[in-house]
């Protein structure tokens, strides 16, 4: 029952009610006059849609191309996958059997076009007899169907009825131009699509994987050890394919299709493309505890996304931490548990700006940035800070702290002469007396702002940082800087880091 324009309309009914003469869209008042004892409940459209979506997802066992269709259908592209089941008839039988086991009333049709399948499923198929339309029979199969089978607007269907057109065949007999002229382009287009004269794409549910392997179980499995074995087996199958093609995958999705029609997914990502079966299987198995097998799992499908070429020689080499021999599996395990963003490299940069000279970049970002090197930032001064264009850090001549605060922490400082380091400063509410100091090392930073905020791009011109290394009486060594030139407003002081 659904509320529409102040009236209660029937949305759906059980077979008994349908036999009593009720139909979807009938006002509740009329329905009650047919069947006074009718029990009604409000329709839960969102629930229905969610259930349909789950069903479409479950149908992924037959093909990666599945999607809910309207409010009461699921479309599946079986081209290219029917042979895995021994043919279309066998596929339809398997699907029908499994739906029946889940108590899902259904009508199935397989046809050459989406339109023909839609029409035959709704108007030719019966509850336990799937319709399979052979390619050359499409027109013949459509002709006897009512014109509603063409997915036309109900108003248009009524209009066609009024002029005596009741069957699809009646429309087929008309010249296409006349049809389009008299009843609109829509009617003609629907007919074209149903007959395969116009292509109709199926937009699948979610991303379509590039490689897929499937494993079906004669008896549903639920034991974690069995799931692990299935994951291993599928990984082996997938890796065999990837190896043959010289590819590696960066994202895998393992779907467990439960007997009750739900699909449990686990997803893993790797920092670099991989086709190491042991490693990938271990990543998948590490996530198996999130899988609820319910009353059992009848299919497992492993899909690979983000597949990239992976030459054999790329399987583990390089010079930095990310590529240290044999570490890739470790990084992938960490990425799988803590997220790939948790992994970072201290990437050296061509910059004299302290916070840019070394930046923690996530490993995935780092791998990507290797392809387009960061344009070098001109080193304006302090030649000892400049680096050769090569990679890696060279030990600095000028001392640098081991801890760098981002953002720099403001301090209250006292100094005598404009170019002096402070003789006293208060940081984190602790007073420090300066015993020794080195500096200043001037770092001109045109995109530095005196309010202590770093911005990307170009901010206040002329802002300047003068860095001092100061040692307090206890021997702690700090990297302090003065932001701005002496004058009005007075410069401000920050602790940027602590030396070891």
């Amino acid at each position, binding site marked *: 029952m659904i509320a529409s324009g102040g009236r209660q309309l029937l949305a759906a009914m059980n077979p008994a009610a349908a036999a009593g003469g009720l139909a979807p869209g009938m006002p509740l008042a009329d329905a009650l006059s047919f069947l006074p004892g009718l029990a009604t409940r409000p329709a839960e459209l969102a629930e229905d849609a969610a259930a349909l979506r789950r069903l479409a997802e479950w149908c992924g066992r037959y093909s990666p191309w599945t999607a809910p269709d309207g409010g009461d259908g699921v479309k599946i592209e079986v081209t290219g996958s029917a042979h895995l089941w021994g043919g279309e008839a066998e596929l339809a039988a398997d699907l029908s059997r499994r739906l029946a086991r889940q108590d899902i009333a259904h009508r199935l049709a397989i046809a050459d076009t989406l339109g023909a399948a839609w029409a035959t499923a709704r108007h030719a198929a019966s509850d336990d007899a799937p319709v399979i339309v052979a390619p050359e029979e499409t027109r013949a199969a459509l002709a006897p169907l009512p014109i509603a089978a063409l997915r036309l607007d109900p108003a248009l269907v009524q209009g066609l009825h009024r002029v005596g057109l009741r069957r699809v065949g009646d429309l087929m007999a008309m010249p296409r131009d006349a049809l389009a002229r008299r009843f609109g382009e829509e009617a003609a287009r629907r007919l074209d699509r149903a007959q395969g004269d116009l292509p109709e794409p199926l937009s699948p549910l979610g991303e379509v994987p590039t490689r897929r392997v499937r494993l079906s179980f004669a008896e549903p499995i639920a034991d974690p050890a069995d799931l692990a074995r299935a994951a291993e087996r599928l990984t082996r199958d997938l890796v065999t394919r990837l190896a043959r093609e010289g590819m590696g995958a960066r994202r895998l999705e393992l779907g467990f299709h439960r007997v009750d029609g739900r699909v449990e997914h686990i997803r893993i990502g790797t920092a670099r493309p991989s086709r190491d079966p042991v490693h990938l299987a271990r990543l998948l198995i590490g996530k198996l505890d999130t899988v609820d097998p319910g009353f059992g799992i009848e299919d497992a499908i492993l899909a690979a996304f983000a597949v990239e070429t992976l030459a054999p020689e790329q399987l583990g080499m390089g010079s*930095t931490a990310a590529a240290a*021999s044999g570490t890739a599996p470790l990084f992938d395990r960490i990425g799988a548990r803590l997220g790939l963003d*948790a992994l970072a490299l201290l990437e050296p940069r061509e910059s004299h700006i302290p916070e840019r000279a070394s930046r923690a970049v996530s490993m995935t970002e780092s791998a990507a940035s290797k392809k387009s090197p960061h344009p070098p930032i001109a080193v304006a001064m302090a030649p000892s800070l400049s680096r050769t264009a090569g990679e890696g850090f060279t030990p600095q001549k000028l001392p640098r702290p*081991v801890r760098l605060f981002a953002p720099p922490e403001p301090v209250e400082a006292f100094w005598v002469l404009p170019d002096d380091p402070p003789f006293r400063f208060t940081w984190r509410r602790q007073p420090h007396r300066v015993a020794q100091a080195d500096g200043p090392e001037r770092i001109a930073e045109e995109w530095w702002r005196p309010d202590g905020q770093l911005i990307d791009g170009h901010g206040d011109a002329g802002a300047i940082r003068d860095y001092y290394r100061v040692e307090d009486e206890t021997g702690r060594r700090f990297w302090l800087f003065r932001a701005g030139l002496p004058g009005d407003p007075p410069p401000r002081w920050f602790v940027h880091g602590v030396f070891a």
Partner: protein
Amino acid sequence: MLPFGVKAIDRALPGGGLALGALHEILGAGADEEDGAAAAGFAAGIAGRLLAVDSLQKQPGAVLWCLKHGDLYGPGLAAHGLDPARIALVRTTRDDDILWALEEGLRAPGIAAVIGELGRLPMVAGRRLQLAAERSGGVALLLRRWRTGAQAEAERARPSAAVTRWRVAPLPSVPEPDEPGIGQPRWRIELLRCRGAEPAEWITEVADASGVVRLPAELADRPAAPQRFAGEPREWRRAG
């Protein structure tokens, strides 16, 4: 075994150096306990030398450094002997995740050392790490950082499964005669606890770019006995 290359220190350690296949704790001192800057410099030196040992065996490795703060600075670590390009950082917000990552790192090939920055370290977690280190022969360095005095108190008193516990404090530098400003920076390195050895304490120069700590020139000339805590009789006197 990783010798420090400083006779005074190596002699105080069973086996003549830092034990491999072991968990070592490194504490900061005083106000530096929160930032752990000196501790990080000391750990960087050790990790850098472990990497160098690995390289000799033609296995270019990496160091896994797990922490909650984002304050590690590459150029500064390089100055104490650890090439930042060889560090894989694991940044997370939970102690448990750090412990897990350390254990995984110990088991993995290609990792010369794991370093974790932790406030709390329950005994059980410490023992797990120690066991993992023993099994793999790897080195785990735990930098203990704490925010509050109360936490510091509690954690310092907690028994630990680590093979050694160190404390590294920055000391005032020694001005050089002709140069104004900060001279050669120094550390006080304390071996607070060590399985099978006595506590000891040394004053050293900070680890250099090859990760080596040195006794200051004027101390190195003396008989190489560990510096004792103030007030304790010197070894040569006791032996006397």
